[in-house]
């Protein structure tokens, strides 16, 4: 099971953090900081894997990938395959790339809720739900289409709040 997905920049600022088991805010921060301090001390050209029992409890592994100014991090337990998790990051990044056409750190910061939408289509309750980035895109686009539609309606405040998606 996947325990957490994190994105942080190379200065250690969290850009997105999702924990699949509830953790209090302070603990989340502690973990993000802990992960960052480990990652930033890693030399170049080493493996993308870390055993991270000290932060996440026994049998926790971490896979990360460093893209330009961002770290993409997945934390999971022994029931997942490290190399496959590395590819899951790849799936995520590919999808984001399609979403934002040449994604960059700022896309991620400014499109916070869309990021979560994408992520929720890939990982659901700690399990890998979908790995086809085309399918993920389709789902996300469908949502944003509806959102855009509903958004234009809700620009007229209050009176027209009774919109329902008819499907």
């Amino acid at each position, binding site marked *: 099971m996947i325990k957490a997905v994190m994105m942080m920049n190379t200065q250690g*600022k969290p850009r997105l*953090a999702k924990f699949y088991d*509830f953790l209090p*805010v302070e603990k*989340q*921060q502690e973990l993000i900081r802990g992960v960052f301090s480990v990652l930033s001390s890693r*030399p170049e050209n*080493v*493996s993308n*894997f870390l*055993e991270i*029992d*000290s932060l996440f409890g026994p049998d926790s592994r971490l896979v990360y990938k460093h*893209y330009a*100014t*961002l770290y993409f991090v997945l934390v999971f337990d022994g*029931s997942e*395959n*490290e*190399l*496959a998790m590395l*590819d899951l990051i*790849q*799936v995520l990044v*590919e999808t984001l790339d*399609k979403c934002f056409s*040449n*994604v*960059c*750190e*700022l*896309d991620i910061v*400014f*499109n916070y*809720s*869309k990021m979560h939408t994408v992520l*929720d289509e890939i990982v*659901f*309750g*700690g*399990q*890998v*739900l979908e*790995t*086809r980035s085309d399918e993920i895109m389709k*789902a996300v686009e469908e*949502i944003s289409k509806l959102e855009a539609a*509903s*958004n234009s*309606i*809700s*620009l007229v405040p*209050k009176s027209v*709040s*009774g*919109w*329902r*998606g*008819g*499907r």
Partner: protein
Amino acid sequence: MEQLKTIGRELAMGSQGGFGQSKEFLDLVKSIGESRSKAEEDRIVLSEIDILKRKLLEPDVPKRKMKEYIIRLVYIEMLGHDASFGYIHAVKMTHDDNLLLKRTGYLAVTLFLDEDHDLIILIVNTIQKDLRSDNYLVVCAALNAVCRLINEETIPAVLPQVVDLLNHGKEAVRKKAIMALHRFHRKSPSSVSHLVSNFRRKLCDSDPGVMGATLCPLFDLISEDVASYKDLVSSFVGILKQVTERKLPKSYDYHQMPAPFIQIKLLKIMALLSSGDKSASDMMYMVLGDLFRKCDSSTNIGNAILYECIRCISCIIPSPKLLEDAAEAISKFLKSDSHNLKYMGIDGLGRLIKISSDIAEQHQLAVIDCLEDPDDTLKRKTFELLYKMTKSSNVEVIVDRMIDYMISINDNHYKTEIASRCVELAEQFAPSNQWFIQIMNKVFEHAGDLVNIKVAHNLMRLIAEGFGEDDDDADNKLRLSAVESYLQIISEPKLPSLFLQVISWVLGEYGTADGKYSASYISGKLCDVADAYSSDETVKGYAVSALMKIYAFEIASGRKVDVLPECQSLIEELLASHSTDLQQRAYELQALLALDARAVESILPLDASCEDIEVDKDLSFLNGYIQQAIESGAQPYVSERERSGGMFETTDYHSQDHHEVTSHALRFEAYELPKPSVPSQPSAALVPVPEPSYYSEPHQPISTSSSVSERESSEIKLRLDGVKQKWGRPSYQSSTSASSSTPPQAANGTSTHSDGGGVASSSSSKPRSSYESKKPEIDHEKQRLAASLFGGSSSSSRSDRKSSSGGHKPAKGTANKPLATVPKESPIPVPDLLDFDEPTGTSDVAATDPFKELEGLMESSRQDGGGSTDVMGLYSTDASAPVKTTTSVDSLLSELSDSSRGTYHQSQTTKGPNSKEALEKDALVRQMGVNPTSQNPTLFKDLLG
């Protein structure tokens, strides 16, 4: 940085329209991004919190604004600030009919709230309603929230709806419903136990994605209860077969692999199901063999599947052919340049050696390379492997290495782990007690505060009990050496408390036993300890008790005791100590000094720490006294139990029966004390070896091994009854293939003879000399290490280790060990020296593998070539080679050997300049054609340079 800011601004403007976020939010994000310190960031966030608090309280906030506030709340909470003041607004937002707002609300509450939060009760109703919605997007949003927010008590409230959704028309909903049900199962298995059959049914869903999702809960269910899912083996094998034969829609392909994530899950499940089950394993041989042939080892995901196959093979009862395949895959991993693959290779090796111990021998040098790799993850993984393969022959090298590493790291968590592993290995395999004590000293010195206190007690017990046999002489030697080593260490600054306790105890018990050190010398040292660590009461207590013992032994042996002045002042200080324990010890010491020799001897007899002290719990020796007292009119004793019974049973004070009755209802007495652990088996859980025998180990090899052949001798001194042999038989097949075994004899040859001799004997062998010329020194060291790690027989490798730790001193090894073994082993060395170079030799070695590889490729292309064009896709780089260049075998070989080493890395990181031939270009183009934006490492570079 400047550039980043401008880009940020541009982007902010650009996305403003598209995603409907306000200027304020973007400004917030930007100002936080530009803040230079944590304090500045905190200030910005705090003022933002103030603003939000105010705005949220305003009446009639437009909904669109509200949505934005909620997003801002989520954002500040991600930065680590408390946003709880706004939770209720997020909850309210989930009630909204507008999908956009509802989704935002759900997102916020899933991030904010814990499943036991009070506000959840306000959401459950909405979730129930939304699960019944006819807009599937609303349903999905609700399912998402279900996963996160529903706890054991609220599961029944939504369970019927979720179960209904298993048959929803949209596969996206079905998938999520399965996942939600899975989540319920994880949280509270009992609440959904009647529904698990649904998972089985959904395995046959028409949509492969839904089937794939079902594998997640099934994996959990099967790992809990293998037996009741045995019937599914054939279905899983069938599914996997269909997947590998590309029966799934093309859209499930990922990097040219058909549905790899499903394959991996299936392999994991099959590993569980077929573990130790011959008939189930049989069913899988075919499909596993296919996978090995079909997996594209040039892509990451292909290797992921290969690794999963290895893992699966290590669990099932494998066929020899599969083991071969797995070993080959591992050797590819280990030879790769990618650290990731090396990591997987080491991990796979660790799994496979359990079944087939000789696999590892081919890879000794690769393993040692990993041990010295700058990558910490890889290093740790390698230590894990070494830990798994430790046996009495290589324990010294391995533990030495571990300790060196332990000293070098700062991570306390891992330090603790590796320290405990050192201790465990030392306890299990220690070749001699001296060595054991040395190792313990090192562990205590460098990780003393991290090791379990039990370890200290074990060490003390070992020193006290010695070999457990009637060999007083050896025991005394052991104690003396312990005392000597402690006297050396004791003056070092800042020793861990636990270690000092051990030192004090041993010095007190045996410091003067040998007569080598005078009582005043030892007691002086002990006073120093108590002085230097005056804040540590436990150490002080140990020191005082040790002093007491020393004086007691002196008195008992009739010598006059003169208490050192510093000792006297210590006692006086402690007499007034705040700690009653220390005070008591000091008083006892003082009292003891005043007693005569006979009394002292019976109080503290010499070397009696192992004697059993019989405790008369009933205090029967007082019976006479009690009798007297009762006769003279005293009240008989009322036990505590009766008294406490009486307290509650005021009506019937004396009724024993009544008390019995109450004891059924409620027990007021304390629980039984835990059974004291039997002192003679402290590590019983870890070490199934009968203890006394392994302490005797060092004697046997020395006395017997000289004349007996390797194998016999190792069998004679096998004391590992019940311990699985982890690493190879001690005998070696003479090399069947070029890269087979690397016997330790060779190592002996090189390490016990002079270095020059070792090289000379192999001068005829080409690869060695060529390698030698490149980096002879390292090579030699490595060989030596390899030999000592991977060598089989304990008697020979012990001498190896001596020589390796002592640098290039062949004399040491030979002097220490019976010479007779060396000539015995000498016939074999020459071919073996060749083997040493094997794994690191470059082109020659690789050439052997590509041949096999080539064969495999030709075979598969012959098989599949007629039927479909998939082969091309499968072997994106490799497969194209045989097709085009079958005539020039040479170039093909180099291509292949290149690809086995380099392609993973290439395809992973660059699409860059193709200096290679058209073959590679062709393959890459194909890859790019399929996935235009995939694997784009310069993802952000366009924008951020």
